[in-house]
């Protein structure tokens, strides 16, 4: 999907959503959600080429591919959380947005735990402490 289509879709969704909101706010929210999902999926589809390139570079450099997987997972988590947080803020659910943000941060850290472990092992082996 090209950027012009994405922009057009966004504007149309916004106009319809604003028009409907006066009469039925639930439908307006669902409409906004649908528009956001379509735009998000199209962007993810385009951005996957960047991820594939990064993955190929890692593989050709024969660096442990689990690192790039962790990084991509963390980036994905960030985008999904951002998407959900924005929707919650739009619908006036600030506290829910904050909770999603905290959950996102926690999940990114959990995803990065193998990296922490590797760094810790490297530091311990450098200082001569056996794990």
């Amino acid at each position, binding site marked *: 999907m090209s950027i012009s289509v994405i922009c057009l879709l966004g504007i149309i969704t916004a106009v319809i959503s604003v028009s409907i909101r006066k009469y039925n706010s639930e439908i307006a929210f669902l409409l906004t959600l649908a528009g956001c999902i379509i735009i998000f999926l199209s962007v993810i589809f385009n951005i996957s080429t*960047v991820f594939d390139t990064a993955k190929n*570079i890692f593989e050709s450099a024969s660096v442990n591919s689990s*690192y790039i997987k962790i990084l991509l997972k963390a*980036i994905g988590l960030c985008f999904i959380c*951002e998407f959900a947080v924005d929707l919650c803020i739009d619908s006036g659910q600030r506290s829910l947005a904050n909770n999603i*943000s905290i959950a996102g*941060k926690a999940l990114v850290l959990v995803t990065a735990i193998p*990296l922490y472990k590797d*760094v810790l092992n490297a530091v311990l082996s*450098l200082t001569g402490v056996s794990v």
Partner: protein
Amino acid sequence: MKKIIVFSFVIVVIAFSMFSASAETYENLLNDSDKKEAVNVLPDNVQDFLKEFGLDSFDFSNLNKLTLKNIFPKFLNTVSSESKNPMKAFAAIIAVMLLYSIIYGVKSTLENTLQPVISVSVTLCIICILVIPLTGFTETVVNTIKISSDFMTAYIPIMVFALGLSGQPLTSAGYYAVMMFTSQSVSRISSEIIAPFMKIMLAVSVSSGISPSVNLSGIIRFITKFTRILLVFSMSIFTGILSFKQVLSTGADNVSSRAVRLSLSSFVPIVGSALSEAYRTVQGSVGLLKSGVGIISVIAAIALFAPSVIQCVFWMLTLSFSKSIAEILNLREPCVILDSVYCVISTLFAAALCMTLVFIISSAVVVLLGGFS
């Protein structure tokens, strides 16, 4: 008169035969087991290199085989094999930073609270890419320094013997004392100070990169500066002591050599000057042996340290280029970690270079100052 002419002729023939045979004769006196012991200490790749050019037996006549045409392909091979790890790490770091820059580019749309978490993940990823190969590399450099000190310990008796043969007892004794002290000190310093110090520095720099709130780069920079000053200071002291000692002992040896030549030319009738010249020729040819042994040791030291030094240079280039790219992409956290690791590698480079120079300078001083007038 006839008898005198015949006697002079015989003496001259003996002198010339000494000239032609002395270097080989004295070279044979160098104990084979000493040479083998010195060469066996070296790693396999250095032994193979020395064997290929026939230098493993300290045979200086094979030095002519070392030509630019022979050496250059070997140098290129070493460069290509030693550059692999840094280049791989460079590619991986660039891939990670490009990904990070994409996220950084859409920062305004990303919620501010998620940004630090993702930057920590990126920094961790860069650390993992860098630290695992660097841990092994640090170990390799420290082992190379240890091997060099073992080689020095095994090589000193050979050089001392060559110096003794060339009629330089004082130079030989001075060289033995200084070099034995140096090799033992190098061994101790490398195993008890440099190795743990480098590892701790690397560990500290890695730890400082994990959290942006912990900034240890100042401490790392201070330690690096201090270590470099210490290395330069020790090198100056070592070179100074060795040079002064060699100048003095070479002067004393030259006086005794001149005294022998004066006695020969003054007290031996008719052929005294011929004998004096023959003595000088023998000294010259044994001096050649000594120079050969010295040069071979320098070649062995260069072959020993070249891979580590080349890889150090490539790591430094990798880290500098990566840091420049991080600065271009305006990524602060990767910059900090790359800068800290660069400090550690540059210190390691300085240590390896210092050890190589200790070897080269010690051999060069003895070879250059050990001439006869």
